[in-house]
Every structure is written in C-alpha cells, then in structure tokens.
C-alpha cells in the first residue's frame, strides 16, 4: 500500500531567466517541451499525475513588474503575474474598488495554496472551473502578454479556446492583468457550489456583476459568468441583453436564470451530473443577481 495519493515530480530542468526577453526566447526555442511557471499549483499536480511531461519549467514570477499590484483612479488596477492571491485579497485597493475579485480569490483552495497561486496562473491554466476567471471576465480584464517580438494586450473574451487551451503562442508570457476603473456604484458576487463549503473545486460557479447604466432601458447593466458548465469559462451575453432591456424585478431575474441555463453545456463528471449542474445554474444565477441587485440599492 502506498501512503501517497500522488507520486513525486518527474525529472525536468528548472530555468530561471534573467529577463522577459530571455524567457520568451527560451520558451519559443523549446516549444512543446517548456512551460512558463508562476506558483506551480496546477503544473505540479498535472506533472505528478502524468498528464504533462515538460522538460523545462521556466520560472517567470520574479521578472520585471510581475510582483507589482497597482491602482490608479484613471488607469485602473494592474496585478502582476507573480502576485499571489493572498496579496490580492489583502490589498486595500482591491477591497475598496474590486471586492468581487477579492471574493473570487478567497474561494480558491486554502490559505497555503493561495500563498502560491496567482490570478494569472488561474487564467492561463484555462480550467473551465477556474474560480477567479468569471470575476476577471466581468470586470473587463485584459492580459498584458510578452511575446518573442513585443508586448501586446489580449482581452479576456476570446482568450479561452477549450479546457486547458488558450490563444497564447510559444514564447508568450502573461506578465499582468489589467482592469479598468469600475463604474460607481457597482456590486457583484461569486457563488461557488462545491462538495463542501470551502476549498473544493466548483460543481457550478456563478459570478454576477451589476452597475447603474443610463444607456439601457432598465437603467442597469448586469453580467453573469459561469464556471464548470462549459468547455470554457462562459459569459452569458443573453442575460446582459435581457436585463438591459427589461425592468429589473424578481421575475426578470428568474428569466435570467433560465437564459443562463439554456446557454450552458455541462458534462457529467465525478463532481456532479449535467442535469444537476443545469438546475443549479438556473437557481444560483437568479440568486446571485438578486443579491447583487440588493447590494446596489
């Protein structure tokens, strides 16, 4: 009998480049056998379980600006790729201006794991269950990506191609995520349905976000993102459109829940059945919107 559920890490070489350019060039030259690494919390599990066989792990969390977290009332919030989730949660600027982001980070695993885990890592891992991705999508997150030739901005919508798959190319390193200044007042919440109240992966995750918007018929704009119910993190545009065009009411939120349910495409797996997930999407979307609405009043 073995005591360990997971074996030790397979052999690889740890690379600590001195600059972003050196890192990008190394990753491009070793495409398919090298991977950028931040906290490593997903990489190590996948390597131990034999899903990934990287020859090189390239540590990029110490590179230029990766450890910074900055807020400017005009420019918004920038979180460096190497900033761990506990630092995001503890940031007074995040707590004041982006509490939804802090809430999403707090739902991830445990304190110990969040000392290592990063938002950018969570995004680049591209799990449909990523807890912070919904908040990042709804808050208008844009990734700052260092490639072999230059920096570029990559908006989060369109970033995810499938489970574990993104638009990033060999040599690309995400160095930060940027958020515009939030509208005031705004409100949001993340409901994570797991097998236990804390620390587990989500069976269903619902992020709701809302703010006053005079350009809409309803006077408000609400957005909803879903986790663990589609091949990629899902923004339900039908909900945003419906609640922009209809008077805000409990009935409208009920209809929004139905629209969210219709938009998702969950699978049966060890954490829950597709049927259960669909039912929960409807109920939790309605609930998240009601609470978000209540907080806006």
């Amino acid at each position, binding site marked *: 009998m073995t005591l360990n559920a997971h074996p030790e890490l397979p052999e690889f*070489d740890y690379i600590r480049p001195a600059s972003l350019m050196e890192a990008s060039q190394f990753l491009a030259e070793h495409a398919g056998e090298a991977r950028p690494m931040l906290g490593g919390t997903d990489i*190590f599990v996948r390597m131990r379980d034999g899903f990934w066989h990287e020859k090189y792990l390239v540590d990029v969390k110490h590179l230029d600006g990766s450890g910074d977290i900055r807020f400017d009332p005009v420019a918004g919030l920038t979180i460096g790729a190497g900033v761990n989730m506990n630092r995001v949660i503890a940031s007074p600027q995040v707590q004041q201006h982006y509490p939804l982001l802090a809430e999403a980070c707090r739902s991830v695993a445990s304190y110990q794991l969040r000392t290592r885990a990063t938002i950018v890592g969570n995004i680049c891992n591209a799990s449909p269950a990523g807890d912070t991705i919904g908040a990042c999508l709804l808050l208008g997150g844009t990734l700052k990506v260092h490639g072999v030739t230059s920096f570029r901005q990559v908006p989060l919508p369109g970033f995810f191609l499938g489970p574990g798959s993104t638009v990033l190319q060999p040599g690309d390193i995400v160095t930060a995520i940027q958020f515009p200044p939030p509208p005031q007042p705004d409100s949001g919440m993340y409901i994570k349905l797991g097998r236990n109240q804390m620390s587990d992966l989500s069976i269903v995750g619902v992020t709701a976000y809302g703010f006053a918007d005079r350009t809409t018929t309803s006077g408000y704009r609400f957005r909803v993102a879903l986790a663990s119910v589609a091949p990629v993190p899902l923004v339900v545009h039908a909900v945003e459109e419906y609640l922009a065009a209809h008077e805000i009411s409990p009935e409208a939120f009920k209809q929004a829940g139905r629209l969210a349910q219709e938009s998702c495409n969950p699978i049966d797996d060890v954490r829950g059945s597709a049927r259960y997930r669909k039912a929960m999407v409807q109920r939790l979307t309605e609930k998240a919107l009601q609470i978000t609405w209540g907080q806006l009043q």
Partner: protein
Amino acid sequence: MTTHRITLTINGEYEQVDVSSNMTLLQMLRDRLALTGTKNGCNAGECGACTVLLDGEPVNSCMVLAVECAGAQITTVEGLAHDGILDPIQQTIIEHGAVQCGFCTPGILLSARGLLNRNPNPSDEEIREALVGNLCRCTGYLRIIDAVKDAALRQQALLS
C-alpha cells in the same frame, strides 16, 4: 537534470544544499535535512500536513520547489520552540487535547502560527478559514479551534 546549489535559512540556521530541479521543499526538509516533523500526506497541496512558513507565510511544502527557496527563510515545526519554551500554539494544542494521531499537527501548528502572526486576534470564522487547508481525521477540529483561540489570548498576554 540540473542540480542547483542554494543557500537559505531554516529555523534560524544558515544552510547550503544541493538540490535537483524537481526536488520539492518537502523532500529537501525531510530527506536532505532530516527535519521529519514536516509530514507528507497527499503530495498534492490538499491535506496541509506539509505546511511550513516560507518567508513568514504558510505554504504547502509539497507544492514548492526547493530551488525556488534560494535566499528564503523557512520555519518548520522544529523551529517553533525557542530555548526549550514551546510556542503558545504548541502549548495550547497540548493542553486542549487537540492531538490524536498527530500526523496533521505540525501542519496545523504552522498554519496557526502564520495566522497569529498576521492577525493576533482572529475570530472563530477567521481561524476556520485559516485552517481550511489542514485536514484532520481524528479530532473533529473543535479542540484545535479552541487551542488557536487560547493561543491568541496567551500571545496577547505575553506581548502586553
């Protein structure tokens, strides 16, 4: 596979260690430095038995590469007591009977020490949240939570 020579401080002692790229902090502590108080439970960052402080913050040492710890300060359960005097959290864990098999205890001690360092007066909810990543299959947690609350009071008394 590359070997790296790293220097770091463990429980206040300067150490120089040659580590392979794939060696975890947990393996280095247990297999190279004989600090076997840190336990290997799941090797996946889920059980918290391997929790140590890395530059003052709790981490799962199974989820940190040893080579990443170059220049770092590490505290393990062996470094909690000083001059034969137990850390308040060690003392209260004993007094509250919060140990049964003891396998999870070193990790819980370090998570609790990390909590009390950043929040000297935690609420029940904050204690529970701080210990979410430390699984215990014997005690039922209640005595552990009582012990952390008591340790916070004693720590405050010591500092006042």
